């Protein structure tokens, strides 16, 4: 089904909105809760590569739309990640592998938007290391915490859309 990626993106959107709501709660701590990387893992196992690429680009552009991050930074990183994941599906064969991938992709994408935003910012941080580490730590933790519920939602949506299940031995 050609539009599976879009319907899947709409099914994933409440999770992204939830992350925005949580960011709202933590706004006074200058923390952004980022989950877009973790949302890529389940679709990378089942969607066709071009569908997964469109899905990743959609998620990336959604994150960037309301934030001062250089255009395309998150989207392109997520697309590169999804190409790698969909070409190496054996890495996502079991839950620990998926969790590892979620953490790595989430931290990688978070690192890219953080550095991109730093590049655009008109001021220099005096001691940015602490906040940087904290943001990466939160991204990694969220990758672990969010993966399973998001993957469950996405798998249910993909089942309904008739997307073939992930092969046991890719």
């Amino acid at each position, binding site marked *: 089904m050609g539009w599976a990626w879009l319907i899947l993106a709409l099914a994933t959107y409440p999770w992204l909105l939830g992350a925005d*709501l949580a*960011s709202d709660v933590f706004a006074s701590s*200058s923390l952004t809760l980022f989950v877009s990387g973790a949302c890529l893992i389940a679709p990378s196992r089942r969607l066709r590569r071009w569908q997964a690429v469109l899905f990743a680009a959609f998620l990336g552009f959604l994150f960037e739309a309301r934030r001062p991050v250089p255009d395309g930074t998150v989207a392109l990183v997520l697309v590169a990640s999804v190409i*790698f994941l969909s070409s190496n599906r054996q890495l996502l064969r079991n839950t620990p592998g998926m969790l590892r991938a979620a953490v790595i992709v989430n931290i990688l994408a978070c690192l890219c938007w953080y550095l991109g935003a730093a590049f655009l910012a008109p001021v*220099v941080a005096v001691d940015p290391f602490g*906040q940087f580490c904290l943001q990466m730590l939160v991204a990694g933790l969220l990758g672990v915490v969010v993966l399973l519920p998001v993957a469950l939602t996405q798998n249910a949506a993909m089942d309904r859309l008739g997307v073939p299940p992930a092969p046991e031995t890719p």
Partner: protein
Amino acid sequence: MDQNRQGARASYVALAIFVALWVLLPSAVRRLNREAFAEFQAPALHLLGKSRDMATFWEKKSRSTEEMAAAGRDLARINAALEIKLNAMDDVRRENVRLREITRYVVPAEYMSVVARVATRDSSSWWQRIVIRKGRNDGIRPGAPVVFGNNVVGRVTAVHLTTSEVDLVTSPGFRCTAYLEGDEQNRIALVNGVAANSLGTAKSRVSVIPHDYTPPAGQPARVFTTGMGGVFPSRLLLGYLDGGTYSTPVGNFKESLLIPSRDLYNLQEVSVLVPLHQNPGEALMQGDQFQ
């Protein structure tokens, strides 16, 4: 397996070509793309804000009749006091107009006030923003100052059809000139946001404080807008100096941190002061560099 590897290689090549195209594309295309995705999210943000309002409504509705009657009585008293003040202010306004006519004083920019509810707040080291539920359809323009009562909240940085993004006073992108309380000569200081480095509340920096400036004793010095530059009206409260001032490494001036006058992350409603006539600063902000 070979087919998979070939497919992956082709995808990487396609991605590289896309990246090159993306960099070369005119900025208008990228801006259009950004705008489309922002508009896509707008209904969800409205829904979020309205559900919050609904929750507040039901919370208030659950209060007892006695409580409401007491609140109504208090409000009536406040209204009566305000009416007296309003009449006094009317006299002051008339006197002000008369004096301006005599001295041929240049009238400062006039503003249209648009009240907007806050939809979400978003912050990181590199930005501190709120999204409000009013946009281009309501006459909001980029660069317009955002206030709450007499307190500066920030400035509109991006306007969409029904939502707008506001850079808070503490955001690294925020900059304005200020007067310090207790400085009789009204010398100008600079206020700019700083990148947040800790889990604590974000603050701004006040720089170019004259070396001989001494804050008033016993209370934190207030920092006001100057009205220069045409963005903010004058004498709005930006915040308070945090503790004392300290010398810059060069030693010609002093610096201090600024605590915003309100808890910016607990605001439910703000007013956007849209200039009735576009000022030069605003025109500059609408340029390509603004985003």
